[in-house]
């Protein structure tokens, strides 16, 4: 392990009294405070599960352990890609950093898509924020975590766009960045609409190729918007100029990585406490 330590420790900032960059120190302090925030939410949920109110539903009939397990696996794999992105940025490999960040964004969006589908499904089954104490604590806890994931995805997208900043950046780059961010936002919403349409078609007629075709047909406008925005993103992902992004920016990627991994560890606890323990 000591061999690896040498490859990471040289990024410590020796200009601070702790030898740790201020950005990193801030992030660790923030994550420590966020631990307490989630502890309060998790405790509230557990207390009401240990003392359930009469209106509590039979959650094992509502939960889909397959879907939750899948989204847990996806989030764990996104953590791997994030760790690789941090490693690539520390070596100044811009292209590899971009690819890993894009992969993390993609996995993060899949997780969010699963959560959107899960919430939609639960609401159809009658479980809402105000239907029972279980609904209130469940949506507050998992929704807060989902918001953290969404913030993480936006942060990742902004960092991805930042990697394209030219060494001699002018106003044109700002316009390009705004277009790129808008294309990301539009593509995300369009992808969610298409995925929900495909999933609903699959739930009604079985998950096969026809479900995919039916889903895309039902969301034709969203599919076209998705295709156009993806084409714009591919077009904007090509850069032949020297970029103002390298090893010096590794600390920014590392800070973002710490946040992303924290979201992952919170989900590790939520998955066990909120989902798995219900099956006992």
């Amino acid at each position, binding site marked *: *392990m000591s061999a*690896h330590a040498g490859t990471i420790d040289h990024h410590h900032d020796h200009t601070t009294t702790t030898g740790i960059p201020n950005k990193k120190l801030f992030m660790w302090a923030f994550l420590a405070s966020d631990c307490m925030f989630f502890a*309060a939410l998790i405790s509230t949920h*557990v*207390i009401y599960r240990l003392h359930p*109110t009469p209106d509590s539903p039979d959650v094992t009939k509502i939960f889909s352990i397959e879907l939750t397990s899948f989204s*847990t696996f996806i989030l764990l794999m996104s953590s791997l890609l994030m760790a690789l992105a941090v490693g690539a940025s520390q070596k100044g490999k811009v292209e590899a950093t971009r690819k890993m960040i894009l992969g993390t964004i993609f996995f993060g969006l899949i997780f969010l898509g699963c959560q959107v589908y899960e919430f939609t499904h639960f609401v159809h089954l009658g479980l809402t924020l105000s239907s029972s104490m279980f609904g209130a604590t469940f949506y507050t806890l998992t929704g807060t975590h989902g918001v953290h994931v969404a913030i993480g995805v936006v942060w990742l997208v902004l960092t991805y766009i930042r990697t394209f900043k030219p060494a001699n950046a002018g106003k044109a780059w700002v316009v390009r960045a705004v277009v790129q961010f808008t294309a990301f936002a539009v593509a995300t919403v369009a992808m969610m609409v298409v995925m929900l349409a495909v999933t609903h078609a699959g739930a009604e007629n079985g998950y096969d190729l026809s479900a995919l075709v039916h889903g895309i047909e039902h969301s034709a406008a969203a599919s076209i918007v998705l295709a156009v925005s993806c084409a714009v993103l591919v077009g904007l992902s090509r850069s032949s100029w020297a970029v103002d992004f390298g090893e010096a920016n590794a600390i920014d990627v590392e800070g973002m990585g710490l946040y992303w991994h*924290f979201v992952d560890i919170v989900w590790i*606890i939520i998955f066990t406490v909120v989902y798995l323990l219900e*099956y006992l």
Partner: protein
Amino acid sequence: MSSAASVPHSAHVQEHAHADSGKFHLFVQIAMLLGIITGVEIVIIYLPLAKWLIVTSLSVLSLVKFLYVIFYFMHLKFDKLFCTILFFIGLVLASGTAAALLAIFSAKDSIPETAKVIYAERAAAAATAQ
């Protein structure tokens, strides 16, 4: 002169490349291990074992996943000790708060009298409806 200087340089580059490759493999192995542990967790809940044993197993497995992520993916193992101390201050306070809340609300006296009446009324209404 230049050839003499390039020998240690290429050795340094090779050493770096080796360390990078080692770290990549380490991260991939940890990710696979985390995936396997998640699979084991899902299987455990369906096993006909004592409830306390399942709860303990799930807690231990979650803790292992948690520690692997913070010490390897979040680099705490390779970073200065101060980062670990800082994060664990928050973690200990959070765990303490959770434990205190669970202990307080486990006490019967902590349930408000009005809530007891409401719960009893709801339970009676639910029983009548059935």
